[in-house]
């Protein structure tokens, strides 16, 4: 039977290594937290994040991003201290559900109007660099 490959561990995924924040790591191991990482993001991890975000980062920018993200992650890591076993995630502040409307065509697309604000258009098509050789 087909089996899904195990999800990569956080360590593998973003190259966090043991080091600076050992205090937290220790707590994670001894406490109830489901993971055992806690390290600074390395340069490869920043490159990967930039690629996933479709952003190019200059060398000096990359160094600053690394520092900033470490600070932000340290800030948001506070949530790890809360036991949320049995708590359902809340995706909508009113716990609402998506309302549905009758499946009827009500809108038309005015292509010319929308393409007027594009910087590169020809014959009703958006122009992009060649993607098929």
């Amino acid at each position, binding site marked *: 039977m087909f089996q899904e490959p195990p999800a*990569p561990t956080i360590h593998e995924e973003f190259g966090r290594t043991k080091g600076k924040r050992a205090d937290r790591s220790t707590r994670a191991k001894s406490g109830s937290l489901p993971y055992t990482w806690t390290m600074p993001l390395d340069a490869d991890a920043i490159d990967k994040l930039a690629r996933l975000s479709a952003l190019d980062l200059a060398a000096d920018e990359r160094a600053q991003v690394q520092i900033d993200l470490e600070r932000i992650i340290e800030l948001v890591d506070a949530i790890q201290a*809360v036991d949320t076993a049995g708590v*359902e995630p809340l995706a909508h502040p009113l716990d609402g559900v998506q309302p549905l409307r009758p499946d009827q065509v009500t809108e038309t697309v005015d292509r010319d109007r929308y393409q007027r604000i594009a910087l590169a258009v020809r014959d009703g098509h958006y122009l992009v660099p060649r993607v098929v050789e």
Partner: protein
Amino acid sequence: MSIGPFATIGQIRQALAAGTVSAVELVDQYLQRIAVAAELNSFITICAESALANAKRADAMIARQGARDLVGVPIAHKDIFCTAGVPTTCASNMLANFIAPYDATVVAKLAAAGAVMLGKTNMDEFAMGSSNETSHFGPVANPWDGNRVPGGSSGGSAAAVAAGLVPAATGTDTGGSIRQPAALCGISGLKPTYGRVSRYGMVAFASSFDQGGPMARSAADLRILLHHMEGHDRLDSTSAAVGATGDLGDHDALTIGIPAEYWCGLEGDLTRVLEEAVREVERLGHRCRDISLPHTRFAVPAYYVVSCAEASANLARYDGVRYGYRAGNPADIQDLYRRSRSEAFGTEVKRRILTGTYTLSVGYYDAYYRKAQCLRRLIRQDFLDAFEQVDLMLAPATPSPAFERGLGRKETAADQLDDPTVMYQHDVFTVPASLAGLPALSIPCGRLGHLPVGLQLIGPHFAEDRLLALAEAFQRETDWHLRTPPKFARAPV
């Protein structure tokens, strides 16, 4: 001309009805003031021509049918609301060339009520910031002190209203972006319940938080504006199908909860100023009692996880193809995407996209995004439990009055350190209500030195009527909302 620049919408409507002022005169006056106060940098686009044309139309309408609704009342829109034919930049280089092909629902509704748009106000880029320093078009100054920030992200709207450049403006609030600048500029600002005001045509930052609302000189004006902004919209699937906000009129004494967690870490004598506001509320006949919202300290971390995750998804649409900034001479399509985004997004926007990408990544999703959503439920539950005991809550809007530019930036001999999380913490008292989708407002309640202090009132879902009733009662007994920044106090220009 018998109406000063700090008149309320109520006063302006009376003057228009009585014929003591015309809509054209009003537009002239405020355009002159906007020009004189250019140093505030509170506007990105000024629509002098269309404003005068619309004011003429308003005067003709008043002559024909008398004054009604907002006919002839000048307003400004935060530059996050799409306006057909007028640039909508979201204070980003990404949208510096963007002219929306349609009006946001809020814009259309206020225009239908006869309001005259003077222009689009400055803000933090994509509404990401608490100081209006991340705008591509430069920072906005606080009218009370030019070296200090007006707050953010709706800083331009707040500064313009505070300086008497426009009687009222729209804002949007994701984690405090209406309430915090309202507090720092000494005006009144309301974040309605999530879903109360349509998000259609509001450039998206974090879709499960974003909510448009009014910013004005009094709570009574907030009520007037909300009436013309709210309502179910079939174009926004998260728009709530609820009735209009009612007017409680004379209401019974309320029980007001004072959440203990909100009174830590306040700057200087802020506690004393806010305690005086509590006494004023008690003098109005209401009973204040201590309550606890135990998960409050996890609100800022949970907020930055969820809002950055949503931002990273929402801002994926900016690819340099259909609209917005397009990088020149791309080598291939990936290069077009990456360079368009890298060249046009500012530092804070990139930071939040990267943070969101990180917390949504394989292996991190459960530890961050899902965990933060669980926290969101716990924080919301704190409020729901407390609202079993109390009708409203009273709290500080911000931990300090307006701060100087460059919060979190430390200049050392070696380099410049800029810690973004210092700024994030300034949202500590506004993000909890945002996470819970609750309505909340900020009104001026005193001074700390020469700077205004904001009082926050938080209500149960869709209890805007109760919030506004208390705020209006407070403003009938106090005059903090009538104070004007000395530098801009002289009328007319």
